């Protein structure tokens, strides 16, 4: 057994898993605030990464300027989506809401392919590629940077939900919309804000992945990988989303390792999380940290 490879892959899994965690967190944010299951989460990454890439390559902008403009754009993008598409569907059955996000997902995926082509495009060189040695393992510095950004975002979320006024308003809305409204919280604003924040945070993750691996339509697959993560952690738990993301990241790499070493089935990297997803749904559908629904008539 090749222990060194296993450790290397586990470390990779943690780094990628942290990114999954970030995306899962922004997915849970929307779900908690507005009870919408967003199947277009991956397209937030995709649109954000392409927008940043376009600004950087077409206008030769410095990275941080382009990055800030991307974030501003994504704020507006999230707001517009919520107001134009999701707001008319408030109160509609869950199937309609799921379907509308699926429709958005396929629309933006095709639009991005049309505008930027189907091939992966590398980001312009932003940071010098160095290799850092951690406990005998070689790690590229961009990976460490991506890990740092993920942790930073997670800390930011923690602060937002426990200290800031808007975050508390959001938690109140998630707890009970009518009570929140009677306390002077604008539920409409909270809905719109949750979509804007979610779009921005996902776009950051998208740019990070783009810088590391190049931008391509494969980015939207992060939106699908979110589902094993959030089901594992519990749909309405932010902590669960982070943990679920980390577990899925490690799991797919370890599954890949065992597959290439012993089983030789191929493609376990992509599929293993979905087997786990089915098993979790069968034995513990509310996940590790999710609230268990008690239904009364």
């Amino acid at each position: 057994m090749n222990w060194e490879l296993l450790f290397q892959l586990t470390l990779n899994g943690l780094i990628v898993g942290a990114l999954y965690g970030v995306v899962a967190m922004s997915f849970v944010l929307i779900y908690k605030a507005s009870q919408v299951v967003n199947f277009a989460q991956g397209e937030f990454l995709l649109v954000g990464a392409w927008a940043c890439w376009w600004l950087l390559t077409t206008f030769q902008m410095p990275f941080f300027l382009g990055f800030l403009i991307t974030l501003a754009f994504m704020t507006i993008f999230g707001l517009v989506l919520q107001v134009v598409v999701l707001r008319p569907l408030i109160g509609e059955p869950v199937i309609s809401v799921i379907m509308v996000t699926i429709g958005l997902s396929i629309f933006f995926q095709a639009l991005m392919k049309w505008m930027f082509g189907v091939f992966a495009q590398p980001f312009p060189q932003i940071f010098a590629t160095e290799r850092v040695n951690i406990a005998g393992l070689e790690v590229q510095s961009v990976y460490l940077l991506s890990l740092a950004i993920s942790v930073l975002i997670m800390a930011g979320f923690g602060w937002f939900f426990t200290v800031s006024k808007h975050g508390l308003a959001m938690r109140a809305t998630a707890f009970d919309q009518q009570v929140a409204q009677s306390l002077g919280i604008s539920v409409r604003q909270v809905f719109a804000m949750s979509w804007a924040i979610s779009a921005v945070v996902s776009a950051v993750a998208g740019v990070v992945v783009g810088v590391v691996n190049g931008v391509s339509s494969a980015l939207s697959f992060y939106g699908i990988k979110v589902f094993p993560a959030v089901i594992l952690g519990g749909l309405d738990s932010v902590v669960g989303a982070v943990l679920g993301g980390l577990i899925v990241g490690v799991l797919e790499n370890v599954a890949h390792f065992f597959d290439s070493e012993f089983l030789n089935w191929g493609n376990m990297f992509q599929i293993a999380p979905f087997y786990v997803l089915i098993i979790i749904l069968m034995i513990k559908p509310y996940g590790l940290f999710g609230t268990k629904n008690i239904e009364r008539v």
Partner: protein
Amino acid sequence: MAGIALTPSGDFRESYRDDTTIFPTKVSRAVAVGSVALLCLAPLTGDRYLLSLMIQAGYLGIAALGLNILVGFTGQISIGHAAFFGVGAFSSAFLVDKGVPVFFSIPLAGLMTTAVGMVFGLPAARLKGLYLAIATLAAQFIIEDFFARARWFTGGVAGQVTKPFSLFGFSFDTNETYFYVVLAYVVVMFLFAANLMRTRDGRALVAVRDHYLSAEMMGINLTYYRTLSFGISSFYAGIGGALYAHYLLFVSVEAFNIVFSIQFLAMIIIGGLGSVMGSMMGAVFMVLLPEVVQTAVDILSGSAIDRALGLAGAISFIREMAIGAAIVLFLIFEPDGLAHRWRQIKAYWKLYPFSH
């Protein structure tokens, strides 16, 4: 309410039998029989392209009807319908490869798909709404992965070649002849679905959709009916897939991806959730949509818009965008689908000069 306006005067329903009949009046029965008879004449037009579109609408309509039984009648959502469609296509091709005549392989493929559907339907018995959506999403990826891996079953990446439908030595291998095979299946499957909705089981499915707790208290076994609806839906997908396989005579592994699944969902939303005929309208819409996009691009070709956007090279992306946009627009502006719009049009003309 449009349904009430449609009932002609003098049609007093005096028994439950009258109330649950498929064709409430003689005219509606005559129209249904007449339109099938008219469709039988379609191959005489000799327009092979039109026929191929109709065949596509036929097998897609059968599969869409299955999805509508699951989503529209039982209120369970599935994002993996294309995978079950694919199971049907590969099962039929596999059985024909093992020497089963095509005549038997199509229904057998339906049953095999039902079996596969039941395996993934087991979680469906416990899950609902959004959790089931995610479970079927996982099923989509797992089955798709299985197609690529199971060389004995699907021929691997090379795909599976199969034979045309034949009966008593006569081979239905042209558009004109295969059209009748698809038409026969469409009539049988749609009559079955329309009849299902008149039985105790069909009404139980609708009760599960409308309020599952009340349904359970009325003695409806939720687990049984959720699994049953998943099984019926898979059966329809399997039949549709088998008809697809024996039309194209080649089944490739890549065809049954998630975009195809979303197309099925789009069909039933556009046609109308919970409407038998709506499934067919949605399938026709989805078959015609690429043609409309193609025509629009052809009209624009050479113009300033074409040069600015490069339409011709992006036709497949524009089609996908049109599907996504159709889903979103229908859900916002016409959530009851084409079937509802059609009822309104009929009601309007019924009262024509004095409609309010």
